[in-house]
């Protein structure tokens, strides 16, 4: 399988090299149409990226970013997806590139002008290696919902689709504003704890985008303390002390099986006593993309039934 892959790639490269030589031989003059038009910009990590021309072939290393590209770019410019990318539906027509571990050969075979990613998806070591191979990686990071909108606008600018991007970002901003209006000034904001794993217990920390989503809805992330990790591990005692009103992370039946049967002590928390335990759609909760408002609306339905 791998062998075939490599062989295919080599033949491919050979073919393209020949083609290139042929082209060079035919019209040596037409080569440098856009010299002096180097595009320079910075990503959210402050890294400087240089492009010879506006990117025409792009892909993303995260499902959320793929959703962003589909919402903003001409779909013909999106040349690949990762194994986790499953939205929007037309994404399935794109070839799959492994992002863990990164399939360098496949990336080179597809020759993207630029790869979009967000913080923490691929190690920086991989990013550097791709840069050496001539494929720059643009990385965004989001702490708030507004960061996601800004990210959309940045993608629009890079891809020459500013109008689409700004229009999308503005209409989403409008929806967020309405949500904020609706839930402004809650007398006693609901304390929400969202778990990502039950053994050990990992939760959405203060420095995740969930905190801002809840804030928009007039509620609070029960975890107020800021930990180094975005998803800190907590003890049962810590959760007893938080005593959240709402627990997110699985249906009551599922959490009864995997969580409360293992930690019966946690049946004391308000969320359990008042039956306020909900499952959220993983794809919405976890992806900072164009469906971020959809995710907030889902949370709204759960928090204000």
């Amino acid at each position, binding site marked *: 399988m791998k062998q075939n892959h490599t062989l295919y790639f080599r033949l491919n490269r050979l073919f393209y090299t020949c083609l290139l030589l042929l082209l060079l031989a035919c019209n040596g003059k037409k080569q440098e149409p856009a010299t002096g038009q180097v595009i320079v910009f910075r990503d959210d990590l402050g890294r400087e990226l240089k492009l010879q021309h506006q990117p025409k072939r792009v892909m993303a290393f995260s499902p959320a970013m793929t959703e962003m590209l589909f919402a903003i770019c001409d779909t013909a410019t999106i040349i690949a997806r990762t194994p986790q990318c499953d939205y929007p539906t037309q994404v399935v027509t794109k070839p799959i590139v492994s992002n863990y571990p990164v399939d360098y050969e496949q990336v080179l075979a597809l020759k993207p002008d630029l790869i979009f990613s967000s913080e923490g998806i691929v190690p920086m070591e991989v990013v550097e290696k791709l840069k050496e191979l001539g494929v720059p990686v643009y990385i965004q990071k989001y702490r708030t919902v507004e960061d996601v909108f800004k990210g959309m606008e940045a993608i629009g600018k890079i891809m020459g689709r500013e109008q689409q991007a700004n229009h999308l970002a503005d209409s989403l901003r409008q929806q967020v504003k309405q949500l904020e209006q609706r839930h402004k000034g809650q007398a006693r904001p609901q304390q929400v704890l969202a778990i990502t794993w039950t053994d050990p217990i990992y939760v959405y920390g203060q420095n995740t985008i969930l905190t801002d989503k809840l804030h928009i809805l007039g509620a609070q992330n029960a975890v107020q303390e800021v930990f180094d990790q975005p998803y800190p*591990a907590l003890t049962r*005692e810590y959760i*007893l002390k938080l005593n959240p009103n709402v627990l997110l992370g699985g249906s009551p039946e599922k959490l009864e*099986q995997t969580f409360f*049967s293992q930690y019966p002590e946690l049946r004391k928390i308000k969320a359990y006593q008042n039956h306020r335990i909900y499952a959220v759609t993983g794809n919405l909760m976890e992806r900072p993309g164009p469906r971020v408002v959809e995710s907030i609306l889902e949370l709204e339905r759960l928090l204000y039934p």
Partner: protein
Amino acid sequence: MSRTLYFIVALLLILIVLVLGLQVGSFDTGLASIADAFFNYNPDNTIHYAIVHLRLPRLLLALVVGASLAFCGYLMQAMVNNALADPYLLGTASGASLGAVLVFFGFVDVAIAGFYMPPVFALLGAFIVTLVVVRLGYRKRQLIPAQLLLAGVAISSLATAIVGLLTFLSDSEGKLKAVIFWSMGSFERASWSLLPYPAAALILALILFAFLQKQLNILLLGADRAQALGVQVVKTRWAILATVSVVTGFAVATSGPIGFVGLIVPHVTRALMGTTGKSNLLFCAFTGGLFMLLCDLLSRVIYPPAGLPIGIITSFFGVPFFVYLLSRKNYKFSS
């Protein structure tokens, strides 16, 4: 005389660390509220509840698991007559990890009939791997220690490789975290319903070997001489094997494979009490429990609230002490 003193010091230290440990947690609690929780227990008071149902079982589990691992390490070192032996020699640790990881990766339901499966499968994994290792180390109706050692290393590597493969193929971060937990250990899932299993296994083993300590000491002279001196070498070895696999199995299934304790505490014991002390096993268990309590306390103080994985702490604080011990001139493994 000095041996009795060591015992008293160890017991006192255990008590002190227990009291200190009861005060560490997310709720602010001083000695007064701890005393209050025990003498005026009010189930509706969350602080009381946390002290009695979360902190105390956690400390006791650390004590029991530390004691179990140290005790089993001592037995294994005596059986294979090798200073490098530890309780995981029979593949218990990697077998348990494999069992638990299989559950986390969805090969088995997480809960069957209301029972949470990872510890159950960890125990099963530990036993199955141990059985295979023992089978390989058994030849001509004899247990051959060298063969047992090699079989243990080989089968452990295989189990570790399978865990590695599953980890690599995992599709979610949560699963990775679960694997990390299972490779370094934690006492966070301690509860009154879990505690009796490892505790009962340890206490029964301590009673059994109270009668076998002498045999064990003679075994250090080598199998042939021990046989000549009237020790039933084969039976003693089987007793050790069975005990180690059960006691370590329960310890690992409840807390994950915590390294190093089973290796160094037996050496500490021999350094302090002599290689053939009459109550070495008991002292070894106390010291192991004390060491684990200290490590757990440290892990929670350094990195609240969840604590660093306990295996990291045991190595960090155990290794320097071990090196010091090795550099002492008068320490010898066997007499």
